[in-house]
């Protein structure tokens, strides 16, 4: 059994794990960090997404042994200080989750997306989240949330909108544009 030392959400753990233990199993079953979830067995759903040294990975396709000596951030450690990361706030404010099962992975992937592309357009957001499936939301509000988080994070103002109702939609979002007659 390999012995590994992993830093997870700010805590260091040293453990003996069996060679076949997946990182996601290690997080959930050994460390009790059940915020990260498993949605599939073919690396398609992205529900298990965490950050390994700041990069998003699907923790079901990484062995625990491969995380030896690395820094893992999960949804439970994302905000660091126990508050909420702007992405978490943006998901809440834009109703970007329903059942919430895809949400941890979706948020971790979205944070990674913005660190590569701080000002993505909608198409870049959609493509950047392609590895994460959501069955509930139809993705529209997830795209909105990522756009919103991008604005907040660039403004550095993490709490610029914390009112009880969601940010007002822009005019073109509220009433759709007629799209005809462009040929």
């Amino acid at each position, binding site marked *: 059994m390999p012995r590994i030392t992993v830093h997870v959400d700010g805590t260091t753990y040293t453990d003996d794990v069996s060679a076949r233990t997946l990182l996601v199993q290690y997080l959930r079953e050994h460390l009790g960090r059940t915020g990260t979830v498993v949605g599939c067995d*073919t690396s398609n759903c992205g529900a298990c997404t965490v950050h390994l040294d700041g990069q998003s990975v699907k923790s079901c396709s990484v062995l625990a042994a491969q995380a030896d000596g690395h820094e893992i951030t999960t949804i439970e450690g994302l905000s660091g200080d126990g508050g909420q990361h702007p992405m978490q706030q943006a998901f809440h404010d834009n109703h970007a989750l329903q059942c919430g099962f895809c949400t941890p992975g979706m948020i971790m992937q979205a944070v990674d997306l913005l660190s590569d592309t701080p000002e993505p357009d909608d198409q870049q957001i959609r493509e950047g989240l392609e590895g994460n499936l959501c069955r509930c939301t139809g993705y529209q509000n997830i795209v909105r949330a990522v756009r919103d988080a991008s604005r907040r994070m660039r403004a550095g103002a993490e709490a610029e909108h914390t009112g009880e109702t969601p940010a007002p939609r822009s005019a073109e979002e509220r009433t759709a544009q007629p799209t005809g007659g462009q040929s």
Partner: protein
Amino acid sequence: MTSTAEPELGRSRKRKEDARLVTGATRWTDNMALPGMMHLAVLRSPVAHARITSVDTSEARRMSGVRAVVTGTDIAADQGSLPCAWPITEDMRSPQAPPMAVDTVNFAGEAVAMVAARSAAEARDALDAIDVDYDDLPVVLDVESAAQPGSPLVHTELGTNRSATWTFDSAEAGTGGDVDRALADAEVRVERTFRQQRLIPAFMEPRSVLVDPTSEQITVYSATQVPHILRTMLAMSLGVDEHKIRVIAPDVGGGFGGKLQVTPEEVLTFLMARRLGCPVKWTETRSETMVSAHHGRDQVQRLALAARRDGTVTGLNVELLADMGAYLRLVTPGIPILGGLMFNSIYKFDSYRFTCTNVFTTKTPTDAYRGAGRPEATFAIERMMDELAAELDMDPLEVRRRNWIDRAEFPYTTVAGLTYDSGDYEAATGRAEELFGYRQLREEQARRRQRADTVQLGIGVSTFTEMCGLAPSRVLGSLSYGAGGWEHAQIRVLPTGKVELVTGVSPHGQGHVTAWSQLVADRIGVPFDDVEVLHGDTQISPRGMDTYGSRSLSVGGMAAVSATDRVIEKARRIAAHMLECSEDDLEFSAGRFGVRGTDRGTGISDVALAAFTAHDLPEGVEPNLDAEATFDPENFSFPHGTHLCAVEVDTDTGEVRIRSYVCVDDVGTVVNPLIVEGQVHGGLAQGIAQALFEEAVHDEDGTLTTATLADYLVPTAADLPEFTTDRTETRATSNQLGVKGVGEAGTIASTPAVVNAVVDAVRHFGVDDVRMPCSPQRVWRAIRGVRASSETAPEAGGGLGSMETGGFAGSEGDLR
């Protein structure tokens, strides 16, 4: 006393549920671990139809960490038969449905053995060491040939693959005329056969069950939509005392009907936990979900429509073959029947007949999936209306206008015998046309056709309605359903003025905690944050019918409202006593009882405290401010809407791109617009997925070839467009809130809008149908007029291969 400044009803409150979901502080069933807990793994049949000749578990039993290995034979006497609550006809044929196969397997994925071990990994390892010998029986895969006499049988003891035939005939029911006459006299007849492909609900949280038998009540944690139904059914089918079972649905990660079930695994985990006397948990892999959790849809629909040349439809005949799969699960037989009352949709047809034959095949059982019977019906009629429009060379919206129920005609009793209480199809359609730019798009379409552009534009229409708010108990009774359709709620005003609302619905993503808080806060006059909504545990919420069928708000929300009103009436007596006035002198608003014409009064929380101390209560008033109510709706509710879809079809590649999607839904009064919009988005995604991407495909041996999320194409963010949503608001008159239900609307409406658009884009090539999912290959072949010959070729929308036998090829892009 605080009061809410802005009314809660109609306010886009952000959800109370989110805080723990966005931070990972969740309680999914699989997150739980109890002391001494064993892990259960289930061995599944790799073959679709076979006799089990031997099962050797000796090696598995010796493996590390293995506590028990159990086969169907071991539990044959205890496991009972899984319940089917909906015998649609008196003579319905229903096979025994053991949770674990004993001597025969009837679909690939059926449980044949199980292992309990110290760890999940050890349990799975031991499955590999179990040796099962099968003696193959003929597989029965195609629903049309299965229905023929002489077909090999799924259940030989039944003597046929036909489970039941259910009919509705307007001439017999006295709700309309004779369809045969209408068809004989028709100026125009349109006949089509549509295939509702088999779908997989694909909720994101795999199912999980944890059973703890170590206390007085056996506690069952399950990722279920229906904790109350599960408890009663476990008691009935296992003969365990109902009061000795507690069911908890913790956080549940989506359901869409897929978790409206009493599953084999729930029973098996229960049996194993009882056997071992320790907690046992089963969590499925995604591959298990795909083969063993019930599937949805899967019908062959034959329709004949009679009309006059002016576009007036005079009759509709519908013949369905519905694929049950191998067994009748909880409500399997009733799913197509739910659609049987809806084929006439928003239209005034003179005559209507519906015949559905339910057929067994050796495939995963089907059951509820978002919409459950109604998407199938809506798809068929909305496709037919477009086909009629094409036949008459009339605008598809105009054909609908000529047939729909005018706004002045409500309430309207349809040819299927349902009374629609309200609606305004003109308003929703008008708004949708405007948002969509209908006329401009038609003009662009004409220009592209004229230029013979490679990329053609298609416009699809769907003006739908659905019956929601399941359900008036007496109607369920008349449809032979095994339970009522009421819902229950309790309100408790605590001594400090905080409010607990207990509801019998069981949310799993719908935001009921937020919406119910809004409902009650407004009515009782306490802040939104002072309301706690309790649900999903039979010990906390003792009565309920759970969540499905867009019923929660229109039935469960109404129960909450009724219970609140009772609390207020109770408080009124105490307040009158406190203020030494007559009850009639009191007016209640914003949480305060005021004595009319004075400035004297008392707040509800003071009344709650007075009730709690009970030092001075009026005669006969009990010392609390609690009340409960059960609401049984008088009628269904009928949300409706107009969905318009524009697609671009590349005629060289068959690729379909949704260019714009506009929907205007009328779901009645809206409690929380944010949540309603989210429900519509999610519904649209699933309906569009049926039109373009998803299909559960079996190979010729009956193996599901789309058994992973790599093969079964749940759409990603990149596959879906931005939707334009709007609403009109016509109050339902069937409930005090005026609400109609929204959970299924998007799914029901969108599939025909998309397929109509695809067909419209290529109709000038002679195409009058494209089978779902409209994958590039299918669209391309439809354009090229290639028919059945290549239907077993790989499909983008169908995983590895599309299994089709029998006479179904004709619907693939007929050229004429």
